[in-house]
């Protein structure tokens, strides 16, 4: 269905019905398909994980949902505060693990800072950093800039050479991967499944860490646009601060919006652009909806396709080099499938 006019109405949900349908499916997957006794959800204080835990509670009941708060020394205080608030509001058991010592021991901060110092030799204690994306909507290839802030507040930016970009991202990815390790510790301990929290924009465009936040047993909102996730958050009565917050990464020491690190547009516009792309909406209609030129709308589509192409590796499960054809199971165990990454 293509409406006469492209606007946020194309993303409207019947929140009550959709939440119940997702919860029913989630209960089926966790209980029947994977035969786990409940679900583990890491709570970032953001809207995605908050909606996921609310869905899990609706599906399984609060006693079968275990929450985790997983801050490290560069996390925002707000993440832990809001994550705790959601856990308490939903009445689930939760635990906090501070990852700082683990990340320090494994070299996360040192490896990242070594790469940063190859660009800014004076970078050290009291400095902060983040990466911002460039290109894309100006027709350029995407590239990344390193932004650092000195203790006195002066900021500097430099385009990242490829090796330094890779090393900084690899080091930062330790954060997501250590978090996932802890989630699976508790999932194994409790015989629970792990809930993954990507929304459609993140899943489709590859905004996740492979074997980090991209790893999970079930991803209940990966088909939902960010706008729809916010709608569900309001449906569940989650804290207003979560329902109105702009998405951030909470991964780098400087504040970083998702649309300056990865997405080319604010999420409301990204939602519309992705919807339009997948419904074959002409470039002219997208341009009108976003109040951009036809050339810019064309570049938005091109950027979506480039990121989707790059996401194929991240989404791919391990690939076998030869066919693997086991004898089909004849028992109910055949219901246990393989989680999609």
């Amino acid at each position, binding site marked *: 269905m293509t409406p006469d006019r492209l606007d946020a109405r194309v993303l409207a949900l019947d929140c009550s019905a959709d939440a119940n349908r997702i919860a029913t499916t989630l209960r089926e997957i966790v209980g029947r398909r994977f035969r786990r006794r409940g679900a583990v959800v890491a709570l970032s204080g953001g809207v995605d994980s908050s909606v996921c835990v609310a869905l899990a509670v609706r599906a399984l009941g609060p006693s079968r949902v275990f929450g985790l708060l997983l801050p490290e020394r560069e996390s925002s205080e707000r993440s832990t505060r809001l994550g705790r608030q959601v856990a308490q509001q939903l009445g689930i058991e939760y635990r906090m693990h501070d990852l700082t010592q683990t990340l320090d021991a494994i070299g996360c901060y040192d490896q990242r800072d070594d790469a940063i110092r190859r660009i800014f030799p004076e970078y050290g204690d009291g400095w902060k950093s983040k990466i911002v994306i*460039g*290109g894309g909507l*100006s*027709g*350029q*290839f*995407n*590239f990344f800039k390193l932004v650092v802030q000195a203790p006195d507040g002066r900021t500097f930016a430099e*385009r990242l*050479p*490829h*090796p330094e*970009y890779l090393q900084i991202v690899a080091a930062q990815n330790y954060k997501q991967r250590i978090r996932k390790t802890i989630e699976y510790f508790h999932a194994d301990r409790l015989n629970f499944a792990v809930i993954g929290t990507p929304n459609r924009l993140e899943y489709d465009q590859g905004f996740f860490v492979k074997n980090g936040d991209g790893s999970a047993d079930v991803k209940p909102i990966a088909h939902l646009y960010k706008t729809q996730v916010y709608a569900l958050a309001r449906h569940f009565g989650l804290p207003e601060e979560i329902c109105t917050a702009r998405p951030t990464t909470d991964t780098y020491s400087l504040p970083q919006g998702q649309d300056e690190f990865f997405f080319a547009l604010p999420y409301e516009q990204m939602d519309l652009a992705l919807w339009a792309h997948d419904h074959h909406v002409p470039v002219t209609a997208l341009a009108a909806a976003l109040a951009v030129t036809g*050339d810019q709308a064309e570049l938005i589509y091109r950027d979506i396709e*480039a*990121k989707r*192409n*790059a996401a194929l590796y991240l989404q791919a499960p391990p690939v076998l080099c030869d066919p693997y054809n086991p004898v089909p199971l004849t028992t109910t165990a055949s219901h246990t499938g393989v989680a999609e990454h």
Partner: protein
Amino acid sequence: MQDIKAQVKSYIAENFLFGENVGFGDEDSLLARGVLDSTGVLELVMFLETTYGFKVRDEELLPENLDSLLAIEAYVRSKLDGRVPAAVVHPSR
């Protein structure tokens, strides 16, 4: 004059294709043929900067400069000659 096209082709074949000859032509889009992706472009940029000794400016990171062997050759020659490349991003773009 150094054979820029041959050098770049050799680099791409060795680094992105593990030395296999997949037979892309001088005018073929390296992106469309799946030879280059967004990460590969940044590797290519580093190769051009270290091999030819110039800085690729942000506004020059365009498919018009980097998406085929012919485009790359023309871009490198303009940089080596101290000319403005054929394609740069304008503020209004």
